């Protein structure tokens, strides 16, 4: 088995149909990112298991992978989303915790972001409450864009929908969030568009 580090995810996945070991390279590329997302959604206790289950599910259905997408991230996030949805109660508990405590801890510590962080933490409980109040499908989309940092096109692939549907849904979600949080929470979509 030889792994070409320049090979795209699609190439590796196709080759893994005959050389299953190659799929570990896909795992090594994306596991940290998927694990961070699962951790954010479900917490420490389930992060490892759900990440492993996500890649196992991906491994088992790799024959269905659409080779037109060289980057497997949207596909993996779509699978992770379905695995996460199996732990709905855990996620709801976690959101309740977020409503009372802003976050486990910042990922970076750049001083120029301190003001943003303070604002975010002040809004934290209300944001978490607004997230909880969102319909599940809407929450999935918002978190794919906000926490997984997927582009609209990638989020559309993960959700199996179109970019225009993602845009319109996201606009509706953000208007609703703004309505619940007030003017302090500015909707500034131009800055976030891909």
């Amino acid at each position, binding site marked *: 088995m030889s*792994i070409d*580090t320049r090979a795209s995810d699609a190439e590796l996945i196709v080759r893994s149909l005959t050389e*299953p*070991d190659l*799929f*570990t*390279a896909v*795992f*090594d*590329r994306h*596991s*940290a990112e998927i*694990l*961070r997302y699962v*951790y*954010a959604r479900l917490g*420490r206790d389930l*992060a*490892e*298991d759900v*990440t*492993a*289950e996500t*890649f*196992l599910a991906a*491994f088992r259905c790799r024959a269905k992978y659409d080779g037109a997408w060289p980057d497997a991230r949207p596909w993996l996030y779509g699978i992770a989303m379905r695995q996460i949805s199996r732990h709905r109660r855990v996620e709801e508990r*976690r959101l309740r915790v*977020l409503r009372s405590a*802003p*976050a*486990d*801890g*910042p*990922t*970076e*510590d750049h001083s120029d*972001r301190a003001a*943003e*962080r303070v*604002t*975010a*933490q002040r*809004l*934290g409980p209300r*944001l978490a409450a607004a*997230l909880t109040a969102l319909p599940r499908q809407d929450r999935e989309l*918002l978190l794919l*864009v*906000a*926490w997984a*940092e997927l582009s609209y096109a990638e989020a559309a692939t993960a959700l199996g929908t179109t970019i225009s549907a993602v845009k319109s849904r996201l606009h509706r979600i*953000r208007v609703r*969030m*703004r309505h619940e949080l007030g003017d302090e*929470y*500015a909707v*500034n*979509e131009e*800055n*976030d568009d891909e």
Partner: protein
Amino acid sequence: MSDINALRELRPAPPPAELEAMCMAARDRFIAGAAPRRAPRRWRRPVLAGGLTTAAVAAGSVAVLVLTSGPGAVPGRPTTAGNSRTVVTTAWTVSEEADGTVSIYLHEYANPAGLQRALQADGVNAIVRPIPYVLQTGFNNKPVVRPTCNYYVTSNDRAPLSVQGAALAIGRRALPALFVIHPDAMPPGSALFLAFMANLPHAAGNIALKPVVLSNDTAPACLPVPAKRPGQSAPTPTAKAGNPAPSSLPKAA
């Protein structure tokens, strides 16, 4: 600030020092799940019964009980085919079954050296290493454990996926855990690798690597985990593709 940025700031993130270990644990589970499986086996606790010969060996504070059965069995000696041999300690039980498989029933992370000896006595080329750590007092006087170094098993260290089925992990992260080893399925020159923090207070948590089959019998190096400085995240080696670390790092025996 925009709503998306506010949400990003609130995203809970795993401690950077733990991320690598969490990824490796997930990798172990993925590989164990993806490997071709043999028929599931039920774990049976060893039972003291007539016909068994017992030899109790005290090693420090850890009691070791060696049970052998079958015709001509001699306490403490490898048994012949058809026999079974069980080493019981307060932390774990290693049992060689009549079909040649070896089971590890782990109910405490302790006595890694003894575990290595017991496995080797059962014909498993095993390397069991303690993960060094320091204990600190955290919030609310709870003990907090921090590894001073950790083992990162890379794809170069690992035997191929098709071989990883030789070491099956049954059960979840929580103890007790059961591992079933098939020594016959391990290629010549390969080794079984386990590592865990030994003798930790229960409340402190633990870092433990599930058994993995190495492509050779050299243990990966225990790479130092940098101490976290106030206000700064500790960097960790990354296994992402395109980065040479840690696969190209030197190994220690």
